[in-house]
């Protein structure tokens, strides 16, 4: 029995690469959106104003308490009954972004709280407003603290985009399913699919580890002592 069938690759290789492109696109769009949106959500969660804090907390808890798969399906199949029609691609972006924003906001919150209180105090004594202090003093230090964790979220998002297949997005995993069903070459197609994920995922995790090391060295990088 011939396990590895190169003809399949010849016939469907392009389709799989196209799926990989879509996977990468989804990942990059969602990570960019959630990295940014998670900061205001984290701030809302820490607000002393209940009217600001409560909705943010409900949002984060609902997202954390339900499966991502269900969230995606809900957005794609249930929202249209309320008159909101989203394409599969947009639904996937919205669903993944809502999910990752919630988790990342918790990461940011932890990072912001980990910055020592004396940083706020010292900034206040040199005339910085609270908003300025957050922007110039606290956030840069918090980012350094959360870089390793966010890096891991980035890697896991790359793989979670496979769930977009349930809302008809033909990313890599879904493409693999279609191609293998059509060609009956399950071994070859799914192996190649896995290799494609790894070909991007492994360099990405090496990159994240490098970022992590840099973050640990802080801002002293490349400076003579």
């Amino acid at each position: 029995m011939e396990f590895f069938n190169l003809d399949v690759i010849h016939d469907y290789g392009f389709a799989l690469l196209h799926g990989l492109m879509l996977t990468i696109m989804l990942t990059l769009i969602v990570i960019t959106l959630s990295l940014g949106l998670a900061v205001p959500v984290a701030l809302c969660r820490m607000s002393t104003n209940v009217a600001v804090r409560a909705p943010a907390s409900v949002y984060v808890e609902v997202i954390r308490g339900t499966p991502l798969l269900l969230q995606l399906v809900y957005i794609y199949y249930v929202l249209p009954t309320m008159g909101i029609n989203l394409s599969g691609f947009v639904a996937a972006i919205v669903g993944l972004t809502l999910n990752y924003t919630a988790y990342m906001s918790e990461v940011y919150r932890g990072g912001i709280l980990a910055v020592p209180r004396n940083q706020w105090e010292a900034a206040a004594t040199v005339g910085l407003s609270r908003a300025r202090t957050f922007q110039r003093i606290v956030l840069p230090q918090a980012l350094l603290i959360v870089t390793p964790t966010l890096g891991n979220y980035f890697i896991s998002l790359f793989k979670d985009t496979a769930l977009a297949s349930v809302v008809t997005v033909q990313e890599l995993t879904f493409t693999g399913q279609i191609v293998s069903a059509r060609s009956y070459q399950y071994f070859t197609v799914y192996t190649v699919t896995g290799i494609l994920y790894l070909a991007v995922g492994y360099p990405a995790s090496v990159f994240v580890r490098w970022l992590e090391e840099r973050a640990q060295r802080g801002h002293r990088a490349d400076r003579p002592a």
Partner: protein
Amino acid sequence: MIRLVEIRKTFGGHEVLRGVSKTFGEGKVTCVIGPSGSGKSTLLRCINLLEKPTSGEIFIEGERAYYEIDRGAIRYHSESRITAVRRKLGMVFQDFALFPHLTAIENVTEGLVYGLGRGRQEAAGVAARVLARVGLAERASYYPDQLSGGQKQRVAIARSLAMTPKAILFDEPTSALDPELVGEVLDVMKDLSQEGMTMIIVTHEMKFAREIADEVIFVDHGVIVEEGPPAIVFESPQHERTRNFLRRVMR
């Protein structure tokens, strides 16, 4: 210059300051001494509102600072108004509280640019000057992690000096330093006092306090027990509590 009236501060049912009234004169160096937990640091931190007094009034340069008292309730001023008053008071912390992600010179320019709204070039000029004044001109581009404790504290002093404060508050500025690094920080402080800077210094360095202070106040259990010129407070303290404290720390 700074006047405190009946300042009280309660932390969760425990009264740390129990009615402190005190005027700090312009150009005067006041050293605050007392056992740990006596409330001396809290007192200092109330002056620039890092701690919010439970009651009492604060006047800076003759003006009511931070809040109004409205039928017994404290009503705070706007953030910008509070910030404007705080800028007049430099602060040096026990643990330096430098911004670790900024170089020495950036630590100094930060307040000039983002607090006072000065241009970058002007700020860099001022920063270079104050760093030179504390003897750290060559360390301008170093990060806090690359500096010794004494150097860090001198950067912190430069940072507050750059804001041209009306007074500088020191909260145990040498307590976190190795003994051999204490001298360089005290020397800088001595220079400042000779140039007429108003300083309020919470310290355990009795020898230094005696040498530099115009006035010493002894705080215990949230009240000022004794105050006066260092010669009097150290040589012939009037109160038993002061005598006991001095006996313990002077040994």
